[in-house]
């Protein structure tokens, strides 16, 4: 059952990712990306990480991709689409991509057994997930957390500065 579910989700994720990468129409590309995020979010739920799943939807689908959509519509989809002349680059890209996929597959699959026991303790990750994540985030990872918030602040200021300036 769960393998079947995983299979369906994995196929969906791969299809949406492929459609996004090859999209001619930018709005369609953005939508495929949203679909991809949604599929991954469902996958997180099956991995007993509901908090990550909803944050994934809220942050990625609800904010980041809307921003993409906003930019695409603001500038105008027609103005953003152009003929991409790639020539020989396409071949190199495919070869390199396949090469990378191979390397990653070999490394990750061979490393996976060391990841830990696949015996699951439901009570550990189940109901208390939010509290656990929160506790970890604000105790052990407090410094990275603060660093991340500073990063966000910097990004915000940077974006405002970039958007405000008349000419680059």
């Amino acid at each position: 059952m769960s393998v079947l579910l995983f299979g369906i989700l994995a196929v969906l994720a791969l299809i949406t990712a492929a459609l996004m990468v090859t999209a001619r129409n930018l709005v369609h590309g953005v939508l495929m990306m949203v679909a991809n995020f949604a599929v991954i979010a469902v996958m997180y739920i099956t991995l007993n990480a509901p908090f990550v799943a909803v944050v994934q939807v809220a942050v990625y689908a609800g904010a980041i991709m809307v921003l993409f959509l906003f930019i695409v519509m603001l500038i105008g989809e027609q103005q953003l689409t152009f003929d991409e002349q790639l020539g020989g680059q396409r071949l190199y890209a495919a070869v390199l991509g396949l090469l990378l996929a191979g390397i990653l597959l070999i490394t990750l699959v061979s490393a996976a057994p060391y990841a830990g026991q696949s015996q699951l303790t439901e009570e550990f990750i189940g109901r208390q997930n939010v509290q656990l994540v929160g506790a970890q985030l604000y105790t052990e990872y407090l410094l990275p957390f603060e660093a991340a918030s500073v990063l966000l602040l910097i990004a915000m200021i940077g974006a405002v500065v970039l958007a405000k300036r008349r000419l680059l």
Partner: protein
Amino acid sequence: MPVPVQYYAILSALLFSMGVVGVLLRRNIIIVFMSIELMLNAANLLFVAFARYQNVVDGQVFVFFVMTVAASEVAIGLALVMALFRSRQTTDVDDISTLKG
């Protein structure tokens, strides 16, 4: 039957590779951006999967950091796209390869 963790590894690797191919293949800066998001997403998936199989939540915590980085990157990146489009009227990465303003 639970899903073996290798399956997640394979899926993650494939998604990541797709992101890489997207970056290499496409010249539209917005698609390139989304491909980068895809790569980050693949990494996230692996984090959560490994965390699940190790019965710890550290992996999930890392996802938040990755998301923070992604959000910052998008904010800056899209502001750059706007600024570039203003001055150059294009979103082709090859046309904006120089550092001159």
